[in-house]
């Protein structure tokens, strides 16, 4: 989120780019000219907004002077930026924090959830089984491909929330495993 100090025309962004933390300090100089320091590396930028999805930029740093075509689209987590064929997810951390407070906690490491809408093909374990890290727990099928969901660590299967042929979606917890360490606590 931007901290705009009026008069100075400076903005600060706290981003992640492809999961790398990036601190961007922006000074808007004049029409279509600005400087941005990215993790302390300064860049001098002029740009043209070519379309809703394309920004053409001239980016000068100490060593290089580059012309860059950046293709951009908004997505729920931030923006996708594509440069030279590579895609980067760019998130504004402050915006993300706000959003996360509203949504349910997502990343629970002791649960098994499918990566995409799929159908359960096989369940290789039963409640109470002790499993080792990497062991096959559930096999799902999507887009004509079978995927094995494996145990993320050693532990005990405490719950199975699906049956063979169930249609399941990301975020659904198909199986829960109590971590080995946890069970001794």
């Amino acid at each position, binding site marked *: 989120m931007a901290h705009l100090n009026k008069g100075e025309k400076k903005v600060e962004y706290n981003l992640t780019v492809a999961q790398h933390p990036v601190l961007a300090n922006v000074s808007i100089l004049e029409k279509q000219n600005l400087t941005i320091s990215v993790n302390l590396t300064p860049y001098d930028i002029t*740009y043209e907004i070519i379309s809703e999805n394309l920004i053409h930029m001239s980016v000068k740093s100490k060593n290089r002077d580059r012309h860059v075509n950046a293709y*951009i689209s908004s997505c729920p987590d931030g923006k996708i*930026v594509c440069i030279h*064929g590579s895609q980067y997810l760019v998130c504004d951390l402050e915006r993300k924090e706000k959003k996360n407070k509203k949504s349910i906690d997502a990343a629970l490491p002791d649960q098994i959830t499918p*990566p995409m809408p799929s159908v359960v093909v096989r369940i290789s374990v039963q409640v109470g089984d002790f499993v080792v890290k990497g062991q096959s727990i559930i096999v799902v*099928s999507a887009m*004509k491909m079978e995927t094995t969901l494996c145990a993320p660590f050693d532990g005990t299967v405490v719950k199975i929330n699906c049956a063979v042929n169930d249609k399941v979606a990301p975020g659904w917890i198909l199986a829960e495993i109590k971590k080995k360490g946890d069970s001794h606590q």
Partner: protein
Amino acid sequence: MFKKILIANRGEIALRIMRTCCEMGIETVAVYSDADHEALHAIEADHAVYIGKSDPSESYLNMNKIISAARESGAEAIHPGYGFLAENTDFARRCLQEEIVFIGPPPQAIHDLGDKTVARTIMTRSGVPVIPGMLKPDPDPDMMKREAERMGYPVVVKAAAGGGGKGMRIVRSEIEMTDACQQAASEAKSAFGNSAIYLEKYLNRPRHVEFQILSDGFGNVVHLLERECSIQRRHQKIIEESPSTALNQSLREEMGRAAVEAAKASGYVNAGTVEFLLDENGKFYFLEVNTRLQVEHPVSEMITGMDIVRQQIRIAAGLPLDFIQDDVSSRGHAIECRIYGEDPESSFFPSPGKILYHKEPTGPGIRNDCGVYTGFEVPVEYDPIISKLIVHAQDRKQAIARMINALSRYVVLGIKTTIPFLIDVLSCKEFKSGQTHTDFIDVHFKGWQQRKEDVDLAAIAYVVDEIFQKRKPRDDSDLSSGTITPWETLGKWRI
């Protein structure tokens, strides 16, 4: 010639077939499922028939619905494309009964060649060299273990009805055998409706070299030279090219003759592909015949100047080939890259979802056979192919440079694709020197991660966009409903 053809497929291949039909003055009938109401193949065809729910078994794999659609629309012939019903003997037979022309080989050829073990027997009989292995399928893992012991590990478990790498597992030691058999059989069952599996000796670092053949049913069989398809991920081709860097003229002729022999021995008619493995000593082995149009057929079209779909339709209409082997020659070098909606950083896991922005490369020597557009929702139910990007140039070096540039100018936002991975493969020195083997990706690109050199530029672009772009207000609800972006799933995914 036919007046109307039904295309029993979807996506890029349905569109590619339509292009030729349209040029031949033949009307096209598309079929579409719930997921494909707004699919390009459904909106670009002259007619479109709705055939049911998104699940393939309720639509694209449902013979009754396809046949009714053909009846209803008055189509005289059906082109099955690749996948779905393309190599289904029952479907070809059903068409015959219904007196609808099936644009493909006769049912018997599909049946014989579809069973890899039968195919191996036919080839052995005709003197075409085959890979050592079982001549009959067997469901028993213990029997498999004994066979493997006899051949020596590593071995490959294969679906007898297989193709496209589905129902296939490499087994390097006895303890992997039971799991591998189970998985291969299960995958084979769901992909081909047939769980039969068998074993073959696993060749070390082979190349995959295949020959496109055309047979007209009047005894004229020609081949359209080779395609080198060694670059594979998950046993599925991802880069194909022609000519192969591994063949000299005499080996090319020898393999071409074997391919024609294989087609003749199996009573083949229409277009097909005879696949070989080529070992490090230049010895080649029959692998299988794909009894359909291949994804990679454009590579042969570019170097020979022929339209293979047109030939398929002509042959199905009962016309003899109007050229002979000597008329076939190669010009320049062609490469195809498959643009999949997959995440190459995560074992090429499918990445369906809404395409937020789509820009195809164009220009000299670039062909893109594409099935999507900006705003299209790539369905979760089907093969994740977005397009086939093909280049043609004067030689291999120029073709590689052309492909790298075309890939760099191909923009797909909203889902992950194979594009950045393909750029790195084409740019590496091993590919440039032509050292392509079927283990290429495992050897050179295991655990590949996208280069992060442009992180600063991406941050800058974000900031400029944030401050200066006047975009219409973001409609988050639209984006998140039903759409999984790769980043929503990544955090939770383990395989």
